């Protein structure tokens, strides 16, 4: 990661992170770890966070750390009209990434070169389904970081 100061784009949407299950996910992101709920009874992973395991109906869960490696499942390139903070960065990519740890776990995010990049930093037309990626965390305010993704070669 370079040390150069980046001009943050203001007015972007941030997660409210205000229900207890979601809040834990975001706390782990702020700590630089990608974790999802793991049922304490049957071991199934689940995301997005929710109180109950749909497989065995157990409430108890842990937060399992993922490798952070994934594969691009799909991608779009958003063009205006968009909210101003996003229109300013358009056209930009949005991807769905499948976790390499568990194909049932997917995340929505963006391909960047480094955390803090503008959303249009990477040429979206060089993205392809199947691209291997790894998570990077972008601090957006105190105690909150967004998971984004950068391409990996291995």
């Amino acid at each position, binding site marked *: 990661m370079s040390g150069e100061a980046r001009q943050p784009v203001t007015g972007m949407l941030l997660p*409210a992170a205000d229900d207890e299950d979601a809040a834990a996910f975001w706390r782990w992101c702020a700590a630089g770890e990608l974790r999802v709920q793991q049922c304490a009874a049957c071991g199934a992973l689940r995301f997005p966070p929710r109180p109950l395991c749909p497989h065995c109906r157990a409430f108890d869960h842990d937060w399992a750390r993922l490798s952070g490696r994934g594969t691009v499942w799909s991608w779009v390139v958003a063009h205006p009209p968009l909210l101003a903070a996003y229109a300013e960065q358009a056209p930009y990519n949005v991807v769905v990434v499948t976790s390499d740890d568990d194909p049932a776990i997917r*995340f929505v995010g963006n391909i960047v070169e480094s955390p803090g990049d503008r*959303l249009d930093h990477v040429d979206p037309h060089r993205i392809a389904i199947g691209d291997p990626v790894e998570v990077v965390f972008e601090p957006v305010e105190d105690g909150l970081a967004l998971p984004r993704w950068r391409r990996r070669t291995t």
Partner: protein
Amino acid sequence: MDEPLLIRDRTAIVGVGHTEYAKSIDRSEKRLALEAILAALADAGIAPYEVDGLSSYTLETTDETEIARNLGLGDLTWFSQVGYGGGAGCGVVGQAAMAVATGQCRVAVAWRSRKRGAASARPWAGVAERVKGNHQWTRPFGLLRPVDEIAMLTRRYMHDHGATRPQLGAVAVTVRRHANRNPDAMMHAKTLTLEQYLDARWVSEPLCLFDNCLESDGAAAVVITGTDRARDLPGPPVLIHGFAQAVPRQHQVMTNYFCDDPLLGPSHACASLLWRHAAFGPGDVDVAQLYDAFSPLVPLSLEGYGFCGRGEGASFGEGDRLAFDGPGRIGGGLPVNTSGGGMSEAYLHGFNLIVEGVRQMRGTSRSQVPGATTCLVTSGEGVPTSALLLRSDDR
């Protein structure tokens, strides 16, 4: 096992009405609703005081009490709303049919009124800087609009099944041609070629401007009674043969990426119940009005409701096979969205598709499919959905 009480053919749509459709109408959502309902009641030949049931979308901004007080309705004994935006339309009519069939009311009115300026009109417009609920997993990353959410599924669909932009374009071009024949359609005077489609500006790649439905103001309404009553009215009844709703397992609304098979849309689960209770199957459907907020929803619905296999929906529309005057069922096609649908007539969260289904069964569509006696109408794919099977009365 207990035999279910099927609503099959026990109720009928006896009246339809709508306002003009336009980009901007200078009358309130409430007033538009009242105009459409009055038109539908006049079409049915039923007096307002006979209406005792009301059915609408949760998106609706006008309460039942306001509708009733303005129209001078009698005592309402049944009223309900269906959620999930564009998934609601057929559910609004189907639940009214259930209420009439089970005696909870005798004359039900179902409607949708929409003004783009209204708070309900654009679900993504009023977003705050903090995003709650399931939107927190998608919107901070710039997946902001319904079109972005469906574009994500579309890219994967194209990748998995080799679907192409010209195949999506065929949907847009065909329904536009239908709209060109329909004087009520917003796109009546605007033609669209495949070349124009391919040159159009992007909105969310792989979807362009013409993959999107219109932005419309307007209202539409239908009147439902029991079939016996319907047969005593002046017009020909259109029987509600079947009705189904579905929320598939592990479904997340619009952003259905967090399940085993994201491309297996709600239409599959909805179709399963619909056909189980029907006396005919997909091969017997003469014409369909398929929810088309975005062009890829048409091939996905063709697959879901069993007109072709998974992954075959996009090529199904080649060779004019979706056109009212194309090869038709005998030629392996299925005429769809014969009024222009959401992409070229008007976008009222799918309610105008129901009105056009009724026209086809009455033989009064501007793009009438000759001899059509059965029609499938569907609501939103990608959200908890619903569908209706309509048929003309052969009595």
